[in-house]
């Protein structure tokens, strides 16, 4: 049972394509089983240790699976993309994941609120729930970039689970416009650790999202404190959901939800950290930055984590064509390439010295940079140190 797309191209003749991952994408529907697995095993083995297994899966097993299973050779031809984009099967899968995010958070909250657990177990469950809600931000990312109003509405709804309602506005209008420039709070700089980045990224993203929405509403002649504010609408759903959980399951929900929310946001921070590390768009004579090019994003083409993340790792094509649907995103040779999938790279980013050791060399060896530090987005606090270390005596000229 395969669906084959064909197109008669005037130059290339007949092009045929069938998507080998078509049914693998259904796994997004089974993803909630992972956070719930720990709870099931807890009952089966009567051990709180089982509650950490979903975290072990995300941060240890997925990187290994990416390494073992390797790269994805499947790549839809550009000529097929319009047909593949129109195939409704794929978008329905993203719609169906939205309610799952509510079910999982409520399910885990119920478990925390009703069982006698150690503090460590509550912490593990809050982080597990947070990492699954981080995937909810990824689902919102896919939906929020699409043109149909219904999908944008779903994005707003699913963002309510981790209380991150400003994300889609900030991301689409802010990050995509300013990506790979020093002005972008969601693009990390060479020499900037993730622990420093998070303090710039989370508040910066909030401010930019709020400002963009305020501007839109003011053009409509409305105040930012209006029911038409998309961010406030999403926050209102968060207040009902999370307030309801506190009323239902008591004060334990306050630290649980705080850790859950933070961890979901931090998953996004982690993705932002690795997606554009050190990459810099050149400034044109007009003062405007050059258009975002494919070499302004780090890519990973590992089959396993790409299935988990709706092809987010095919990131260059996403920035070139932000409204293109996940199933149609393409891989290209010769782009900045990460040595493992996103989950493995998150873990690497959490150990800054190891991250620098692996990534700084890779960054400077990119063909368009070729050791030229003038073409790198560098943390200003570490600029001199980095120029001394990698500048090979050309530091003066480069310190513009």
């Amino acid at each position: 049972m395969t669906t084959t797309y064909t197109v008669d191209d005037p130059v290339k003749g007949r092009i045929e394509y069938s998507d080998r991952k078509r049914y693998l994408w259904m796994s997004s529907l089974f993803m909630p089983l992972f956070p719930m697995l720990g709870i099931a095993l807890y009952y089966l083995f009567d051990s709180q240790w089982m509650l950490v297994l979903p975290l072990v899966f995300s941060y240890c097993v997925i990187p290994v699976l990416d390494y073992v299973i390797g790269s994805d050779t499947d790549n839809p031809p550009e000529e097929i993309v319009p047909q593949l984009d129109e195939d409704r099967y794929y978008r329905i899968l993203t719609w169906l994941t939205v309610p799952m995010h509510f079910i999982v958070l409520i399910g885990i909250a119920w478990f925390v609120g009703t069982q006698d657990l150690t503090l460590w177990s509550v912490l593990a469950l809050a982080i597990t729930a947070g990492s699954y809600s981080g995937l909810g931000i990824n689902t919102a990312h896919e939906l929020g970039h699409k043109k149909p109003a219904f999908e944008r509405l779903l994005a707003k709804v699913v963002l309510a689970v981790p209380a991150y309602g400003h994300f889609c506005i900030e991301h689409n209008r802010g990050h995509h416009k300013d990506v790979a420039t020093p002005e972008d709070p969601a693009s990390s700089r060479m020499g900037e650790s993730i622990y420093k980045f998070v303090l710039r990224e989370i508040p910066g993203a909030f401010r930019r999202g709020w400002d963009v929405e305020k501007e839109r509403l003011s053009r409509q002649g409305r105040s930012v404190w209006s029911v038409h504010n998309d961010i406030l609408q999403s926050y209102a759903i968060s207040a009902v959901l999370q307030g309801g959980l506190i009323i239902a399951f008591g004060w334990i929900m306050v630290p649980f939800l705080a850790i859950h929310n933070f961890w979901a946001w931090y998953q996004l921070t982690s993705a932002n950290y690795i997606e554009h590390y050190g990459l810099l768009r050149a400034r044109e004579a007009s003062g405007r930055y050059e258009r975002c090019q494919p070499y302004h994003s780090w890519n990973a083409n590992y089959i396993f984590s790409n299935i988990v993340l709706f092809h987010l790792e095919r990131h260059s094509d996403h920035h070139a064509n932000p409204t293109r649907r996940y199933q149609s995103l393409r891989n290209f040779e010769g782009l900045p390439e990460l040595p493992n999938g996103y989950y493995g790279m998150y873990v690497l980013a959490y150990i800054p010295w190891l991250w620098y050791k692996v990534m700084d060399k890779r960054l400077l060896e990119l063909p368009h940079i070729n050791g030229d530090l003038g073409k790198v987005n560098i943390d200003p606090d570490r600029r001199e140190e980095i120029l001394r270390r990698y500048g090979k005596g050309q530091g003066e000229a480069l310190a513009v």
Partner: protein
Amino acid sequence: MAKYRCPGCGYTYNENDGDVREGYPPGTPFAALPEDFVCPDCAVRYKEDFELAEA
């Protein structure tokens, strides 16, 4: 009135309809949009990138 099209994603600005959600009322000429206007759908094409689709 004219229509202008984003060459990246196909978003079309129709001067007749404006873009009410974005705060541009019906009848707003394309030329009257702010200079830092970006495509409301993809946000990676600027005002000067837009092409005249229908005069």
